[in-house]
């Protein structure tokens, strides 16, 4: 490892599993450098056993999210200059998920909950049918489109206080997806999904702290989606379509 120089970053990286600890590294600062590049430098040049996850490098796969100076972020699209405070970086795995090793979190609870909230399209047509004509200006389609570009990176889930306090809570991403499906008139599981998201651990568990929309790298509003689900569930109670 080279001597610490004025241009170096002082980087603390989580090593080990849940009972691990931070280790400190000196990484040369560069003009074009993302947090993922910093992590990569440590693995390539300082400690070849450092574990982390990434794939696409451009903010499309959502594999590389980590906690950077206390906040969940995509590391591939986070320039060091935007987040390094006094040349200091602290990088940890995503919160609210089990740690596999070092910076790699186990995402499976996140996807289990996505499914628990009815997060899959239920078809009513088949490949033998023509594609359904749907005008992009239809109000429910506009609502669905507003939330559809989620890449399931887990940033909102890791940043959610309610998830931290309530392990049963399915979290913002799953509810956001459920909301887009509730506004998809091609879907055939509306009633079942509404029952799922209105159950314990569903939309009513949200305390509207709005961290999800503050943190969402895609600028989506899971908070808005969750309030939409709450309203929809309330109407269904009043109509007697949903048991309280």
């Amino acid at each position, binding site marked *: 490892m080279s001597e610490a120089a004025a241009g170096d970053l002082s980087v603390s990286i989580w090593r080990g599993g849940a009972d691990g600890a931070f280790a400190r590294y000196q990484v040369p600062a560069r003009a074009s450098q993302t947090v993922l590049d910093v992590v990569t430098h440590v693995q390539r040049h300082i400690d*070849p056993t450092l574990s982390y996850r990434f794939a696409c490098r451009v903010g499309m796969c959502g594999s590389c999210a980590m906690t950077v100076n206390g906040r969940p972020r995509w590391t591939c699209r986070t320039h060091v200059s935007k987040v390094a405070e006094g040349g200091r970086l602290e990088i940890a795995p995503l919160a609210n998920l089990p740690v596999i090793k070092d910076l790699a979190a186990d995402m499976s609870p996140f996807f289990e909950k996505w499914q628990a909230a009815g997060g899959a399209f239920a*078809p009513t047509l088949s490949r033998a049918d023509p594609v359904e004509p749907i005008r992009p200006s239809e109000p429910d389609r506009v609502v669905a489109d507003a939330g559809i570009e989620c890449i399931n990176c887990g940033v909102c889930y890791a940043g959610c206080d309610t998830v931290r306090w309530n392990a049963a809570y399915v979290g913002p991403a799953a509810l956001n997806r459920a909301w887009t499906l509730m506004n998809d008139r091609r879907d055939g599981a509306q009633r079942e999904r509404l029952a799922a998201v209105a159950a314990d651990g569903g939309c009513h568990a949200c305390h509207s702290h709005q961290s999800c929309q503050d943190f969402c790298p895609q600028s989506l509003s899971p908070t808005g989606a969750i309030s939409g689900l709450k309203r929809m569930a309330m109407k269904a109670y009043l109509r007697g379509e949903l048991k309280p």
Partner: protein
Amino acid sequence: MEIERIRTDILILGSGGAGLFAALHAHDRNPDLAVTVATKGLLGKCGCTRMVQGGYNVSLHAGDSVERHFMDTIEGGKWLPDQELAWTLVSTAPERVRELENEVGCFFDRNPDGSLHGKAFAGQTFDRTVHKGDLTGIEIINRLMEQVWKRRGIGKLEEHRALALIPTPAGDALAGVLMADIRTGHLRFVQARAVLMATGGGPTMYRYHTPSGDKSMDGLAMALRAGLPLRDMEMVQFHPTGLLAGPDTRMTGTVLEEGLRGAGGHLLDGAGRRFMADYDPKLERATRDVVSRAIYAEMKAGRTTPNGGVYIRMSHLGPADVAKRFKGMVDRCRDCGFDLAGGLVEVVPTAHYFMGGVACRPDTATELPGLFVAGEDASGMHGANRLGGNGVANSTVFGGIAGDRMPDVIAASGGFREPDESRIAAEAARCLHPFTRKPGDVNALRERLMDLMWDEVGVVRDAAGLRRGLAGLDAIEAELLETGIADGARAFNLTWHDWLNLRSLVETSRVIALAAERRENSRGAHYRADFPEPGDLATSTFTVVRRVGESLTITDEPVRFTRVRPGETLLEPPMAAE
């Protein structure tokens, strides 16, 4: 080392468009079968289908036809495609898009009247590219992965790396696949009655490349060692505008979309001079291969930007308009520290897609019984050039076909086959080899490989350079085999996997260089400075490389014009395709 044994009726390697479609189709065709998807990263989150920006070519619109899509594909492929594979691609695409919309739950962009929007895409005579904004791949993969997660019967082996295709002792069929569990570092032999290889190609052996970081040609390296024929291996597609952000950043090489040039973006040399007029009257709107070669020539002539590329300039179109029209690109550049809308951004040609791969039949079967192949691991659909929008069509069409076919083949051919234990042992030793050598600098070798391939086997090739390339590959491989990794921490050891990636890349790089040396003409993505003419189309051949014993053999096979011959068209009334 202890090697765990598990069984599944169907094993699918890869979770891009091909792998996920195969899993859905196989499971839905026979839910009693055990179907397992093994993927190098997380399910649906690695690989390149997710990164598709452009869209999906399909003849679903009034005025278009399967024949027209076919002719565009054949013309684009410079008459090298296998016409039965290309026909299967274009004729199955409409059903696949209807399935994506109606059963999987994708929602593609609509016209104001509610019908599917088709956008214009380079090299096509009809605006047939169905898309979801410029994030089409995310919509397709997100919806597919949800459907796979929903089917609880589909097994998942995430963060599992395929190491080797293991045949029977007689070598007459595939018995299963040796894998490494990346998380634990343990080896596992997965015995399967049918295997789909859909790991994606991904020419990441070049200095500048677009594919996701997990891609390292593992599938083709495994196929080569299994003795399978690889075709069109000289055909590497370069995209003209990869982001050039300097060394030591993973941002470098990532693609800046085609539409920037289409909309009127300018390319400038290091001194700020617009240079495309020196190369083609269509200027920046010339085809990918022409623009890539022009930029490459500017770089060779030394007229470069500080990091050794050229500039793209959009600001003359109005920064506010550019920021609105290309929001995704502008946002990404901004996050990475560059002002695409108002400033200059350095770009460089970047290796994007691999047309070469395993030779296969239209039903995705290979020469080895039990092994099927789809997506970028397969070859013959695109010939010398892939049309933008035919990549995701290819992976989803043939992944689905493989998923339909494998249960039928299993029903007809019976049970599990016993593996050649000596091959398992040899392949296990091969992957553990770096732990037997003194630790060294794997990354330095990776850097050398990328420079070598870029310089000698890249955008513009000639005989002398290709010979230097082949010699350089031998030297890098020899050094790699003496470069070790400290043992003791095999769990989630990315450096071990970097080593394995590099070995796959060196093996496939050698095949690319050999095939490029063999083709003494210039077609599509393959350009020989010493043989710049395309050659006679009517007597077109394609290259086939296979390993026999310890050596590689290469042959030229005649293209069979089973549906249309050069100079003819399937379109009625005849229209000249451009």
